[in-house]
């Protein structure tokens, strides 16, 4: 009996042994993945610990000015900064997932139209809670981070759109840039350029948020409101672009252009105009031809409101409210008047405060037109649109695509888009 048992046991031990081995393997695996941030949980400001920062700037690595700035802000606050960079389009979902799992970063740098979405999700703290000082920020810029009378972050810097032009192409066509003041004179200039055998204007009308971003200066410049896409003004903006395509003033490829491919077209030197952003300034200097920049004209003259681009710095909700104090010091370090100049120079943005804007113009007079454009700019989620904006934006870029590709007339496209929103 004992002999029999032992033989039975031996098999069983083998089985149990294997199970134990497997379990031990799992335990070992699990224990190594356990985050060891116990030191950070003390929650006392300047008591050390690790603070996490997420940003949408994967193009900046450890040696960049931006990361050095983050680290120096961390050491000023007496903490170690752990920075992770994400692709812009990836960051919204990453932030939502992290909030769902209860491990949101301490500080997040995020694209401004996303703020209202994250605020709606209850992911971000308000400035009342986190004590961030926003008094110096230009009202038109902070608006994108406000919803229901509360402010959910501080703009780290702003950029917007304007028209780049190629001096040589305009000279050849006999166009005086000073004559371009409204839509009629701009279209007349394009006509002359086309007649001279050159290419007119390039922009991005791709079927993503980028397309809406590029269309908005014309939409707002016509006097239209996002709450009514199919107004006569709104339709006139779509018609302007559609006519440019029909008459060959703009290439058909704009329908598929991102802002980068549109810039590549302009950089070829064949185009008179390109609608593009502050961030192309460094590339413009390398383009190898003389260029200039004018604000995007409104339908009847003046400067059209362009949408503000650029990110906000926000402090996501944490279980341990004691962490906010240090997070607040980190954000203030990045956005305070003293440091803002370094931040915006690093990121090649326009500062969100008048004081720093003035300093930027003194140091680089070329930025004057951009500062003016940023002052005229408007947040996409402003006018209390908040999370309604994305639901308007998607039908809008769809309508622009439908009109430009000839699938629908501008009127029909905008009417259908308005119907889709309701």
């Amino acid at each position, binding site marked *: 009996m004992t002999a*029999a048992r032992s033989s039975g046991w031996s098999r069983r031990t083998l*089985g149990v042994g294997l199970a134990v081995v497997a379990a031990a393997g799992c335990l070992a695996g699990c224990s190594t993945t356990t985050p060891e941030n116990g030191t950070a949980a003390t929650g006392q400001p300047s008591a050390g610990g690790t603070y996490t920062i997420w940003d949408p700037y994967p193009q900046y690595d450890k040696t960049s000015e931006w990361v050095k700035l983050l680290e120096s802000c961390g050491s000023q606050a007496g903490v170690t900064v752990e920075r992770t960079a994400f692709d812009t389009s990836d960051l919204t979902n990453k932030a939502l997932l992290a909030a769902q799992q209860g491990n949101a970063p301490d500080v997040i740098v995020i694209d401004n139209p996303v703020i209202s*979405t994250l605020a709606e999700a209850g992911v971000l703290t308000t400035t009342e809670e986190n004590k961030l000082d926003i008094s110096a920020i230009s009202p038109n810029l902070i608006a994108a981070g406000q919803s229901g009378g509360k402010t959910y972050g501080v703009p780290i810097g702003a950029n917007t759109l304007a028209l780049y032009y190629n001096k040589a192409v305009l000279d050849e066509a006999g166009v005086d840039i000073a004559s371009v003041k409204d839509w009629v004179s701009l279209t007349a200039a394009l006509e002359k350029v086309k007649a001279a055998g050159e290419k007119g204007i390039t922009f991005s009308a791709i079927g993503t948020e980028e397309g809406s971003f590029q269309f908005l200066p014309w939409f707002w410049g016509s006097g239209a409101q996002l709450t009514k896409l199919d107004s006569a003004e709104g339709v006139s903006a779509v018609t302007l672009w559609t006519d440019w395509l029909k008459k060959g003033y703009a290439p058909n490829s704009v329908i*598929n252009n991102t802002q980068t491919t549109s810039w590549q077209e302009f950089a070829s030197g064949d185009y008179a105009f390109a609608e593009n952003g502050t961030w192309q300034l460094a590339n413009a200097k390398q383009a190898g031809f003389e260029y200039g920049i004018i604000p995007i004209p409104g339908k009847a003259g003046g400067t059209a409101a362009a949408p503000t681009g650029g990110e906000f710095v926000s402090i996501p909700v944490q279980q341990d409210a004691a962490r906010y104090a240090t997070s607040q010091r980190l954000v203030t370090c990045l956005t305070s008047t003293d440091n803002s100049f370094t931040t915006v120079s690093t990121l090649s943005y326009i500062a969100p405060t008048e004081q720093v804007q003035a300093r930027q113009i003194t140091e680089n007079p070329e930025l004057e037109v951009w500062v003016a454009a940023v002052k005229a700019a408007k947040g996409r989620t402003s006018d209390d649109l908040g999370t309604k904006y*994305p639901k308007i934006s998607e039908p809008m870029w769809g309508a622009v*695509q439908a009109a*430009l*590709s000839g*699938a629908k007339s501008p009127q029909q496209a905008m009417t259908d888009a308005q119907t889709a929103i309701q």
Partner: protein
Amino acid sequence: MSRIAQAPNRRPAPAIGGSVPTGRGHRKVWRPRAEQLTAWAFLLPIVVYLVVFYAYPLYRNLELSLRDYTVRSFVQGDAPFIGFDNYAKVINDATFGPALWHTVVFTVVSLVFQFGIGLALALFFVRNFRLSATLRALFLVPWLLPLIVSSSTWAWMLNSDSGVVNAVLGMVGVDPVNWLTSPDWALWSVTVANIWIGVPFNLVVLYSGLQAISPAVYEAAALDGASGWQRFWSVTFPLLRPVSAITLLLGLVYTLKVFDIIWIMTRGGPSGASTTFATWSYRLGFGNLVPSFGPGAAVGNLLIVTALVFGLLYIRVQRRQALA
């Protein structure tokens, strides 16, 4: 000792104990458990792997599609259960009809041409002429390239204004075509790119299928006076049927979920002209500032179910063939 005392009450047990040596009797009681444990220990890694990486994500995707997720309820985790409302919403969406049609056209046209061209090339290469190995290797290039590379290259070639295709057309006096920016052409352009990418796979699988057919069968057919065409239809094609079936099934699953090519070349545009279920699902879940997880997951599930239906159909046909 107590066991013996209890014996009369449990009659079967002593019966076994009586006829069989006690040791083996106990082994019979113990062995299945030990073996089961061992078996489970061996199974454990794969079970854990399947549950973590397949079962749970599928379950989550199903759950996402059955609840009303807003950004707020996604974070708070209190999304109300709404049954099939997301599916109803998706099916009644203006995008559903066109997206379904585009998916069908894209899949069927891709499969027909990939399989046709792949089979023709396989028949060509099975003759093993000089340089055939080199040429065959060249045909594999589309398969080896990362999709982002081949799709971006196609997008450049088909660019309306500076693309090489329109430049060539211009040389022979044909007006430029808006390959990617015209609603009439966008779907065909992405389909052509997808066919080009899918041919090597069909070529390789069908080529190995052809090699498995015994030359003796062909010799017998030739002796019986079968023409080349007859040999193909009556020998090659029927003998290649099992391989063809699995090639088409894998091709179908692959084509249904094609996303990268379309997204890189057209973003599903212009104005939805090349939107398939795969790109639509992505757009709903990730392509907007406010993600609609529920409807996005619903569209994704429709794709999974479609692939599953064809998979089951394949198994059924295969079983019937095995029985016949």
